[in-house]
């Protein structure tokens, strides 16, 4: 009453700062930036604990170990961004591995690989249609597909590993360009494509919009049906791509391959800051999540900690990362 401050345009809320923020400031505040710090911190600690950690050879080792889980985690990111989950990637990985190994017995490599990828995509399409068209819960559908996939891979393989794959296959892993192995190059290329797609295309933004508010996205005329199915197709196809790189290294296909791979992929996406409710996350975060997980495994090996401790370490990182994020968010909303 006594003080009547001059009213500015009342439409503009005062809790948004009026001055344009420094562009770098925005980068520092992102979750990806904090994850990068975490990854660097982890690398620092491990390089102190083990002299072998920060060697060129070990760095390539880490990147090499990141390829399979990294590829699968891209598909998982797509799915989780829509608010879904794909528990079947491990089983699809196993099954398409068997399909690829069988196909390689009777056809050339350039035909066998697309066939396996197509099979993976087909399985993803199946899940995606059940989820998007029939409205079934992603968790349940992919749980079912996981059981079916694993069972079929045992049947198709005759319950044993298939070896005797053509030796040329290893070219996709061991040929190098500028000293970088082909599989690592592929991984980098894949992440660049996925990042570009998710950030700058209609499809990518629709995937975010679906995870954030599917009803609003649909009402705004976006093709929510198509882009709800697509992530599962991508996820299935990428599981097959991942198994191709795996087979090229091991030179044998095991029906149990990729067991619990889905959990690693989900862990990487979650560490990378994606929300399991959808709408929030990025492939950059996922890549950092993958590197953090692989570094922990690699580092613990180097300092000769029993492999049974790996689960504890990774589990703790997930929980600490989520908790830290929550505390930061609380602080920023409270004061």
């Amino acid at each position, binding site marked *: *009453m006594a003080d009547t401050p001059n*009213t500015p345009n009342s*439409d503009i*809320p005062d809790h948004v700062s009026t001055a344009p923020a420094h562009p770098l400031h925005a980068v520092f505040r992102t979750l990806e930036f904090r994850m990068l710090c975490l990854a660097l911190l982890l690398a620092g600690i491990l390089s102190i604990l083990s002299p072998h950690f920060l060697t060129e050879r070990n760095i390539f080792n880490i990147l090499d170990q990141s390829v399979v889980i990294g590829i699968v985690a891209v598909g998982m990111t797509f799915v989780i961004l829509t608010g879904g989950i794909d528990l079947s990637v491990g089983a699809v990985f196993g099954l398409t591995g068997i399909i690829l190994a069988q196909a390689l017995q009777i056809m050339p490599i350039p035909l066998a690989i697309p066939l396996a990828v197509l099979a993976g995509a087909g399985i993803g399409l199946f899940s995606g249609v059940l989820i998007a068209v029939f409205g079934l819960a992603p968790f349940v559908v992919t749980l079912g597909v996981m059981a079916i996939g694993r069972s079929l891979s045992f049947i198709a393989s005759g319950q044993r590993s298939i070896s005797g794959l053509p030796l040329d296959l290893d070219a996709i892993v061991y040929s190098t360009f500028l000293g970088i192995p082909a599989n690592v190059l592929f991984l980098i290329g894949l992440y660049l494509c996925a990042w570009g797609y998710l950030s700058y295309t*209609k499809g990518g933004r629709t995937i975010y919009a679906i995870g954030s*508010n599917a*009803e*609003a*996205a649909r009402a705004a005329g976006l*093709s929510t049906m198509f882009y709800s199915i697509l992530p599962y197709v991508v996820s299935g196809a990428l599981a097959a791509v991942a198994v191709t790189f795996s087979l090229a290294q091991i030179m044998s296909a095991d029906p149990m391959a990729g067991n619990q791979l889905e959990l690693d992929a989900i862990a990487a996406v979650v560490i990378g800051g994606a929300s399991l409710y959808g709408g929030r996350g990025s492939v950059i975060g996922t890549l950092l999540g993958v590197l953090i997980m692989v570094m922990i495994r690699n580092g613990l090996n180097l300092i000769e900690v029993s492999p049974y401790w790996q689960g504890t370490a990774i589990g703790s990182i997930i929980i600490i990362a989520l908790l830290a994020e929550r505390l930061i968010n609380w602080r920023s909303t409270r004061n």
Partner: protein
Amino acid sequence: MLQTSQKAEAEPLLTATGVSKNFGKTRALVDASLTLRPGETVGLLGANGAGKSTLSRIISGHIQPSGGDIFFDGATLSLNSTRDALRCGIALVAQETSLAPDLSVLENIFLPNLATKGRLSYRAMRIDANRLLAGLGHEHILPLDAEVRTLSAAQRQLVEIAKALALDARLIIFDEPTASLSATEVDRLFDIMENLQNNGRALAFVSHRLEEVFAITNRVTILREGKVVAEDVATSSLTQGDIIQYMVGRDIGAIYKKRTVKPEAIGETVFEVKNLKALPWVRDISFSVRRGEILGLGGLVGAGRSEAVEAIWGLRPRQNSDIQINGKPIRLHKPADAVRAGMGFVAEDRRAQNIVPDLSVRENLLLAQMGQHRGFGRGYGKRANKVAELISDLGLPAHRLDTSLLNYSGGMQQKIIIARWLLTQPKILILDEPTKGVDIGTRSSIYRLLQQAADAGLAVIVISSDFEELLGIAERIVVMSDGITIADLPASRLTEEKLTLLAAPRTSAARNQALLAELAETYHADAVWTLLDGDELICLTQAAHDNAPSAGLTPGEAIMVDQTLIPKAIREHGPGFVTETDGLRQTLFTQLTDKRGHDLGWISLTIAGTAQAPDPKNIRAKISNLTSTDKDDLNGRHP
């Protein structure tokens, strides 16, 4: 209300002083104070973002204050949760509903009871719930076993109100409870609020609607930008202008600036819907809108307005429809079809149906544009100029485009959502409750935005429960009741009272229809229920006996008195039957009023001129009997 002066001396039930609340750097409340006394209703007013919701949420334990003292019932009140508040007897009927969507209406009404120990008696709850809903007058449209998620926004609010009533709270804060209620429902709510007040409860009423503030509150506390600018002032000492002045700090002039439409500016019919059917809410809806015209779709909550446009938009299954754009039939299966056909749609629930919270302001603004865009990219470049133009119109600095939309006030969010559609340059724009929960200043700028768009040739369809708003903004109004379009009239021929009457729900309409049928049958007559406005008649419903002479009236149409076949009877409306000059017809034209003496229109009963006229007293008795049973009915339902 007569006891106000005595009540003012009553010990306050709640006194809050020096209350402040910071959200980050934002000071949402600064040194606010509020006094609530038993048996009194205090209006808590302010524009959006003024801090009235923050204050009510502090008092109801939803959030904790950053500073200040609150005394409740003589003791310091310190609330850590809403449960603490409920235990003290403080309930909030919230603006954004806090219901559990998967539980039934019954379970939601008694949700706080679910947290108590011991067994629940569903039977007792059911009886209580029926009593509460009957008090609200909504027992028919709120099935107790329905899941709350299946209810419309307005019905959810009714559940919310019943929930607070079920708690028997001593202090109830109504945070914009009328935002989605129609005039009749607001009346009922006010009856209930008066009742609660007379039972010694302290009520706080948060609202934007000034008429309602004057109707229900004893005192007002007005906030602006987190500060109290008028504290505990008697409502009777203020005018609407005073309150607006306090709220916005400047004179905003008339909210509804009537558009001057030149008849030639209104073009050909661009959009037409015939016999739309989308059960269970939409049974038979037809309307059309022309280029440059603003059409209002009016009706009470539950009339199926939102459901009808959602069905058109492809969000609900349709059983039958014939939709035409520019005279050509078009098949709309999903929203994308409508978007590409040049339509836009601002849905009713801003948070659930319009905003994509994780996308930035820019992306939200361009969302429909992206939906319309064909191609692999986002298509953001195409409309860059239009975006720049729109955001400067909205008063939104360009560098804020990449922040979260959730940081903005409800009014700004709404303007951005409307701009989202204007950006696609549609031919037809449908807006469902475009000013719900929006402050007065923003409301008038939304109206301006729509009027400018209509002037530029857009066909606008506005749905609103606020009849004053409909009359203020629309040139023509289509009235719906119970899933059927019942009238299509120019706004200039309507008033709020007439609209309320036209939109009357089935129960009374069915009763009136039954009466007309009975009269028609008994007296071999043409019985019509009409509204009379000067030289004009609006015919609502009709029942005619086969042998009766026609009065020349057709339901849903307006007609000049002289064009009817019974002008003499209408003009004279004497106590008995009046024979027309040609001697072919004799008519009893008698008025219908409700329990409060409001004009409910006229009943006209036309029989052959040669027939023996029945005793008009009997007929009048039958007619007044109708409204008096209405009265008993309503009173009987009160708790």
